[in-house]
């Protein structure tokens, strides 16, 4: 057993990492689906989208061959509507509340239709927005992820000059670095960022990291307002013996390497255990398998009832041949010569539901052993607590506390994963919009505020 790279041929890598949800092949195919949409009033799908995209409207626009209007409808509510159409857990959001579900019919393929319009807009570089006259105001945004880009786009449209400081060498945040490549290709992520910044008035400075070569007081001095969209950091520690052995890796780091170095360069074990069952765990497990791991086992301490990923995601993992070990919690990592050899797991059982109805896993005292040479940790991510503390920003266990999108420091706003601890891309986009609205109010006053993000909820 060994952790090695370059396990597959170029063709195999290509096949394994090609688009898992192919787009509509033709205008006609999209029309058939668009015409199924009932065009609901006060539609449940809109209310189930964190960014409140007017879904029936954009689908109707596809049906009338008004693709440009359709893309505008989507991007007005969600400037990352292209990426979201590929990565959103839609069965929990828009598609999950489609009224067709209540008729026991397949819901409208909202994501696929959204992709149909947005891909055309992005590849065609359609100019759908114009900037308002310059206000003379300047805003600094830290982090070119979904929250930062979304905030930047709204602000720039309102005539504000935006500079984004990004610690990586590419924009997109977790969209670019933290999501399975078969969902969004690196090229798409780059195109999406370029499309957003093509509006003008948004300048991204790469390789600038807060706390390293960038300081908050500097930004406060040089800009009229600051928005922090710094996301969350490394995977949560397992806090078990053997965690530091060679072969225990962080899922985010693993996916980051996969996205930044190219598939053949990323080493993977023969027998891999993935800890956790969120979207990141699924992405890590399936991609480990697709990189050529012989056996991948997902270890989760609860049951399918409680799992955080969607059924569809679980299905992808199963189809990829990943095994599932329910009711198992990592207890100890054992190894030889500093390298991982075994993962000892406690067998858990679920307690009776607590007041909130949640059933906690309880150790039965029994254990079992998985023979592995690689362990990927994907049991949640940890906020940048030290950084936030050092900047004297109020937080709760590392999550920035905001009031009306503002931190405790005047003129400094925040949103996205660094505030909520880690949610979906679409939630971060909405946070960015709301942050922008708050900044506009702070800078130019609410009476001039033209952007309405406050749709009734």
């Amino acid at each position, binding site marked *: 057993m060994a952790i090695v790279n370059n396990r597959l041929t170029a063709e195999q890598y290509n096949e394994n990492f090609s688009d898992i949800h192919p787009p509509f092949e033709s205008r006609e195919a999209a029309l058939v689906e668009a015409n199924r949409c*009932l065009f609901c*009033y*006060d539609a*449940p*799908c809109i209310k*189930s989208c964190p960014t409140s995209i007017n879904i029936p409207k954009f689908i109707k626009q596809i*049906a009338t061959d008004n693709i440009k209007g359709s893309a505008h409808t989507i991007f007005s509510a969600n400037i990352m509507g292209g990426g979201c159409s590929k990565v959103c857990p839609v069965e929990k959001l828009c598609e999950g509340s489609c009224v067709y579900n*209540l008729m026991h019919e397949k819901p409208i393929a909202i994501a696929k239709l959204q992709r149909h319009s947005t891909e055309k807009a992005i590849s065609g570089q359609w100019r759908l927005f114009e900037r308002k006259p310059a206000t003379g105001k300047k805003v600094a945004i830290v982090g070119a992820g979904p929250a930062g880009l979304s905030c930047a786009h709204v602000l720039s449209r309102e005539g504000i000059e935006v500079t984004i400081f990004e610690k990586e060498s590419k924009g997109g945040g977790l969209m670019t670095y933290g999501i399975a490549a078969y969902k969004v290709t690196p090229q798409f992520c780059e195109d999406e960022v370029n499309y957003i910044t093509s509006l003008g008035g948004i300048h991204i400075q790469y390789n600038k990291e807060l706390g390293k070569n960038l300081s908050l007081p500097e930004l406060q001095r040089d800009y009229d307002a600051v928005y922090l969209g710094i996301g969350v950091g490394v995977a949560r520690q397992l806090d078990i013996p053997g965690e530091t052995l060679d072969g225990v890796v962080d899922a985010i780091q693993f996916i980051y390497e996969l996205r930044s170095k190219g598939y053949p360069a990323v080493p993977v074990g023969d027998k891999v255990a993935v800890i956790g069952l969120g979207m990141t765990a699924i992405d890590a497990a399936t991609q480990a398998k697709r990189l050529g791991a012989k056996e991948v086992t997902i270890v989760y301490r609860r049951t399918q009832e409680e799992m955080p990923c969607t059924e569809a995601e679980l299905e992808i993992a199963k189809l990829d041949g990943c095994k599932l070990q329910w009711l198992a919690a990592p207890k100890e990592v054992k190894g030889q010569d500093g390298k991982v050899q075994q993962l000892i797991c406690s067998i858990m059982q679920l307690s009776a539901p607590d007041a909130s109805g949640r059933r906690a896993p309880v150790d039965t005292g029994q254990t079992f052993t998985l023979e592995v040479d690689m362990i990927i940790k994907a049991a949640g991510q940890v906020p940048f607590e030290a950084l936030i503390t050092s900047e004297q920003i109020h937080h709760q266990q590392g999550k920035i506390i905001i009031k009306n999108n503002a931190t405790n420091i005047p003129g400094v706003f925040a949103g996205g994963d660094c505030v909520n601890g880690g949610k979906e891309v679409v939630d971060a986009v909405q946070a960015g919009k709301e942050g922008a609205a708050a900044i506009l109010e702070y800078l130019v006053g609410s009476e001039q505020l033209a952007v309405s993000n406050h749709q009734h909820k």
Partner: protein
Amino acid sequence: MANISANFLGIKSPNPFWLASAPPTDKKYNVLRALEAGWGGIVWKTLGSQVKNVSSRYSAVDYHGSRVMGFNNIELISDRPLELNLQEIRECVKLFPDRAMIVSLMADNDRNSWHEMIAKVEDTGAHGIELNFGCPHGMNERGMGSAVGQDPEIARMVVEWVMEKATIPVITKLTPNVHSVVPTGKAVVEAGTNALSLINTIQSVTGIDLDTLIPNPNVGGQSAFGGYCGPAVKPIALKMLTTISQDAVTSRVPVSGIGGISTWKDAVEFMLLGASNVQVCTAVMKHGFRIIEDLCEGLSNWMDEKGFATLNDFIGQSVNRITKWEALDINYHIIANIHQDKCVHCGLCYIACEDTSHQSIHLEYGKPYNTYTVKTEECVGCNLCKLVCPVEDCITMDEHRKGPEYLNWTEYQRRGLPLNDH
């Protein structure tokens, strides 16, 4: 099993489905394929005056992703040699003696031309003649087709010429391009036609290419008014048929129903409003002759379910259910009822009623699903909510009479009951 065989003026066919005079019936090849598929009868594409066709000839209207909701053509009558057509008709009659063979005619506007054509057609062994007084494109510019059908006196004259000569049954096909089909219908019945058929196509412009700005069908950068048919025209045809079925003179002769018939249900509706049989064209131009199977099976199964043994048991049964508005019962009142167990919360009933009708539906906000209920005191019973609801029987219109007795407009006024009081 119901007996679906038809007898139209003594012309028998195993089922009441004839192919209308049109491209599908313009030569032996197609006609034999249709008869092999099981069609009851053929109305051979119009023979007559000399013509030359253009290209393109057809266009269509699509709706909500569905192709050919309406169909339009600018093709003229048969452009094949007359003798060839006659020879092929003769052969088809011999090969399928149990099917109806009707020949559509449109001669030049003189007595001799008509007499010559009739003699030639009768010589083929065909069972009947249909007079094309309806074609609304090309031929009408030369004083034929709908130009005849639009003028009752010209139509009367031509039918009189025809009846002087014809020894087999004559059906006169009416044009819908008039304010009412009844005057021409009356004139030709008085002139002796044995039967009527309706409707021919309706003059139309189906659409415009938004890139080139040229209306379709495009003939070298120009277009011309065409004849509209297909499912879109069915309601218009049914209305015109009803006026023929209700008129004292025109109702004396049998009617062959035409206009957007695609399914057995459509056919039954035409027959309930007085058609003795039906003619089909657009549906086969979209799907081919194979649709005859379900036309026959669907009709037969429906008749069995309803207990109708023969076609005559139900032909015309709905004619007297259409009356004048002033005879309708004002005391009849229905109120919408949204069945919550079936509601999928799409809100279509609400927005239709709220924006365009009587604000009779209450919205109770929910995330993600709103609840919709009827304000019974506001509901006027218009049906709109039920019509737009995507779930069958989710909205029912329940009867809540305003009074026990039948009360029509005349009586309502006589009693001086309140007006404009909603």
